[in-house]
């Protein structure tokens, strides 16, 4: 019942909403980032982080630190938060929380399959996987030779199985196919998530549809930009766009025929919410587009916290944390490689 969530939401969701808002209060602030950007060594970063929620995770690390250790430990914190919330959650929140991890699952599948294709060691690949997207038989992915086998052997057991129906072919796996598979899976996943949120109704549906629409549009733009100059046909490209979002359906038709970045820009500027993204960019510039998108995304996720009694806060929190970890990784890399002048290039302040 829309508008009446306040009556019943707290029965099951109140505790977890409080938890997630508490976690959100632990996100690094601008002053934290300012301090982090002034760090001289990775030890300084560790020291500064020891005063934050990452403290307990980093305190037992021996001194010559590496960026990977920092990122790994910070991710561990995110995973612990997530697992705690998942343990406490009841239906439908638990399903909602599980949906959040499917994106990582798709990435992991693609990572393993690509890795095996290039004959990398499976253990090494497993270490690179995002811990949120792990499932039992993930290592078995290495056995599969083509998509059909991939599906039949491993993925049929995972929640990703339904998304696979669209991309089962007997073709051998190659880079191009894998990338198409990733995007097809992602499309199916986003659409499924979108439907699920619509089914939940209320403020969750409203806010999540906004957030997911943005995600879908961003993917559409990225697919377009990345496929410019490849052998991907326009029809194939069109098939990879998710069937919702602001661009759907007319924007998709226009994006499908784009041949360079300025055409993409022309398409996007027709949509008022995306005008601001391009306002800061000069023509022909695509490197900064990612950051602009991230900034817009962070803004939207922060706004999700303004409303109460809905599930989008969980989604927003997870995404904000991930962005924060990306920031930390960038800062640590810059510090480790003595490139401090470039620190601000890719850090997206959350508050």
């Amino acid at each position, binding site marked *: 019942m829309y508008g009446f969530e306040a009556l019943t939401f707290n029965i099951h969701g109140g505790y977890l909403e409080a938890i997630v808002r508490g976690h959100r209060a632990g996100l690094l602030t601008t002053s934290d980032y300012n301090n982090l950007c002034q760090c001289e060594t990775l030890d300084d970063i560790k*020291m*500064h982080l*020891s005063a934050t929620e990452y403290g307990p995770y980093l305190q037992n690390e021996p001194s010559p630190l590496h960026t990977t250790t920092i990122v790994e430990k910070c991710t561990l914190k995110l995973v612990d938060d997530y697992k705690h919330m998942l343990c406490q959650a009841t239906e439908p929140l638990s399903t909602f929380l599980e949906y959040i991890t499917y994106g990582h699952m798709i990435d992991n599948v693609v990572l393993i399959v690509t890795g095996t294709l290039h004959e990398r060691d*499976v253990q090494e690949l497993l270490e690179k996987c995002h811990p949120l997207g792990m499932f039992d*038989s993930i290592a078995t992915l*290495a*056995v599969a030779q083509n998509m059909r086998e991939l599906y*039949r052997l491993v993925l049929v057991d995972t929640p990703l199985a339904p998304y696979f129906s669209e991309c089962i072919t007997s073709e051998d796996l190659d880079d191009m196919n894998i990338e198409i598979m990733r995007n097809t899976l992602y499309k199916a996943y986003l659409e499924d998530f979108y439907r699920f949120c619509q089914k939940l109704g209320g403020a969750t549906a409203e806010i999540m549809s906004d957030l997911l629409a943005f995600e879908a549009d961003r993917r559409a733009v990225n697919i377009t930009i990345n496929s410019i100059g490849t052998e991907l046909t326009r029809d194939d490209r069109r098939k990879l766009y998710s069937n919702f979002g602001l661009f759907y359906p007319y924007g998709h038709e226009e994006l499908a025929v784009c041949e360079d970045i300025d055409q993409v820009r022309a398409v996007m500027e027709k949509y008022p919410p995306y005008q601001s993204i391009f306002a800061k960019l000069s023509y022909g510039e695509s490197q900064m587009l990612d950051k602009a998108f991230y900034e817009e995304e962070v803004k939207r996720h922060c706004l999700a916290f303004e409303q109460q009694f809905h599930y989008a806060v969980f989604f927003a929190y997870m995404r904000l944390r991930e962005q924060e970890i990306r920031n930390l990784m960038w800062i640590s890399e810059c510090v480790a490689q003595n490139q401090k002048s470039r620190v601000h290039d890719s850090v997206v302040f959350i508050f």
Partner: protein
Amino acid sequence: MDHFTDKFPPMDLMRSEKMTFVQLIIPAESAHRAITYLGQLGLLQFRDLNAEKSPFQRTFVNQVKRCAEMSRKLRFLMDQTNKAGIKSSCSVLKSDIYLEDIETQLAEHEHEIIEMNSNSEKLQQAYNELLEFKIVLQKACSFLVSNHGHAVAEERELEENVYSNGDFVETPFLFEQETLPGPSKSNQSGLRFISGIICKSKVLSFERILFRATRGNMLFNQAPADEQIMDPISTEMVEKTVFVVFFSGEQARTKILKICEAFGANCYPVPEDITKQRQITREVSSRLTDLEATLDAGIRHRNKALSSVGGHLAKWMDMVRREKAVYDTLNMLNFDVTKKCLVGEGWCPLIAKTQIQEVLQRATFDSNSQVGVIFHSMDALESPPTYFRTNSFTNPYQEIVDAYGVARYQEVNPAVYTTIIFPFLFAVMFGDWGHGICLLLGALVLIAHESKLSNQRLGSFMEMLFGGRYVILLMSLFSMYCGLIYNEFFSVPFHIFGASAYKCRDISCRDAHTTGLVKYREPYPFGVDPSWRGSRSELPFLNSLKMKMSILFGVVHMNLGIMLSYFNARFFGSSLDIRYQFVPQMIFLNSLFGYLSLLIVLKWCTGSQADLYHIMIYMFLSPFDNLGENELFWGQRPLQVLLLLLAVIAVPWMLFPKPFILKKLHNERFQGRTYGMLNTSEADLEVEPDSARQHREEFNFSEVFVHQMIHSIEFVLGSVSNTASYLRLWALSLAHSELSTVFYEKVLLLAWGYDNLIIRLVGLVVFAFATAFILLMMETLSAFLHALRLHWVEFQNKFYHGDGYKFRPFSFATLTEDEN
């Protein structure tokens, strides 16, 4: 009055310690030592002068980092000792080891332990593999019996190859050798197998995947392993399952091997020939015993190393923690311009100044410094912190008060009165000397084990209980006292102080409930007459007693609160508050409720039948009417009119004059200074920048007036509602006694009525549990909370501001609590 109060002996707890703001200028060479000594003394609260700097920009960041690194190593060693299960025997240590020594020693030990761990890990892995192989051999045989006779020649040869090179330990996966079959010797049966071992939790999905991968063309056999195998990473014992997969075809084979790898299943070759099997089993067993011996030796060696460190760990941990605290404090200090001195600021109690000076001198002397530490008082802007010197008896009461709000600097501390009034009010609600004895025993146990328990880490609940042991002690003593007055022992009255003054009208005593008792001798000397229990007059009498008593206590308690506001006002020299707040408040409360108390006492003394409700109500409704039979004393009517008049006057008295006078004072102070401000020279501003800032505060009359209005209304309404609030003493006391009566009569006596041992026993158990959990725990808690409320709200809102902040000195003694 002033003369009289000045003669009181000084009360330490009444007002917080006089604090002074001090500045320290410490030469760099003796800084560390000085801070260490100050930490041992623990009487100086440093102010962070580098608040705007981030932690890694401060001066002593490297030392702090080193300490953090050392405590990490210490945690690692501690962890290892705990894992190995070594009890650290506290060895006697030389006290003067330096941090640098510890650092090098720690590094050595850590390195040693890590190396030993990695060695034993390797050994453990080899051991695990052998053990697994042995289990596989044992289990797989049974599956292979059916296949016996299809012995595959190639594998037999192969096995010989494998085991002849002998470096069993070094081969991580034994099946690797197996995967080199000669192409010429394709197997005769067409059926081949792979045997191995896998975690029990993964078996199901493993089998499923195998089935899918081979499209069902395989046979999967499994048997649980008898022994658990240690997981080298988590060092936990894992249950494993042995499997044998039969299949045919080379492709299936590679697939299965890949799946095995993906699932972390270890494959071991099993020969089909029984003699061969026996031989290998023998070999494996002998190797296993060898390895076991090596492993044991390794572990013993490691444990020895660990136990040699173990004794020092706690001490080192303490030292490192102190060092870190010292450097953290040093980071709060500023370097002066010449970079040769550190400048620190902070608060200390006035009486501790000499002690601090002594300590600083000692530090200068010990570090052979040429220049002493400069230590002098300064003026401070902010108000000083509040510091009470408490002992283990007064501390819990101070905590009770602090939980509401820390006292403003030098304001009257209600904890002084709380020490007695709080347990007493509790006891009024919890009056039962049987229950009191139980509480007393609990408190005595806690106090008897004081020295033992205070060193232990207790759970949060026990810690609370232990901290409040003296509160519980006083509460129990008072509740025994009140219980004697109420004459209740687990709700049973006793004839302790002689015989009862009442007797029944006839021998059968049937009409005690309906018509009551007859008095035949002198009244019962102390407390409630035991004969009243269950009689007609019991409830009316007890209600009237407890209700009136509650009001008396309430009025006295609130009067005390208002009196304390007088002491506050006098101490801070605010005659305005005395004249326009204390006096009218006193008059208002006492002209209404003080008068009520007077009537109660009079009625008790004279035994009059007057109706006090009637008197109080008609005092307001028709003050000039004749009181009739309700007149208690001569001149009551004019007195009532006078009191009513006083109360009516008191309300505007406390409302209007204060804000207007404040406004007048403010205007006078700045009269003619509007021009003067420009003339004041810069020097003048520099001398007194603080005081000037304070004076120039905006005076907002409406705000002050509204504030005063709220206060007055709150007081006038509050005096009615607060008096009513004290009736909770009566209500809780009644509830407690009724509840315990119910448990006594309806459980214990009822069960005792049966002539059956089991029923009696059950009744006794139920009674005991009800007494322990409901009466002793829940009722104690509720009476405690109500007493707390009476203190926080009814008592403290008469005088207590509670907007100060606590004095937190830099002290080593408090360090251990922060960590962990």
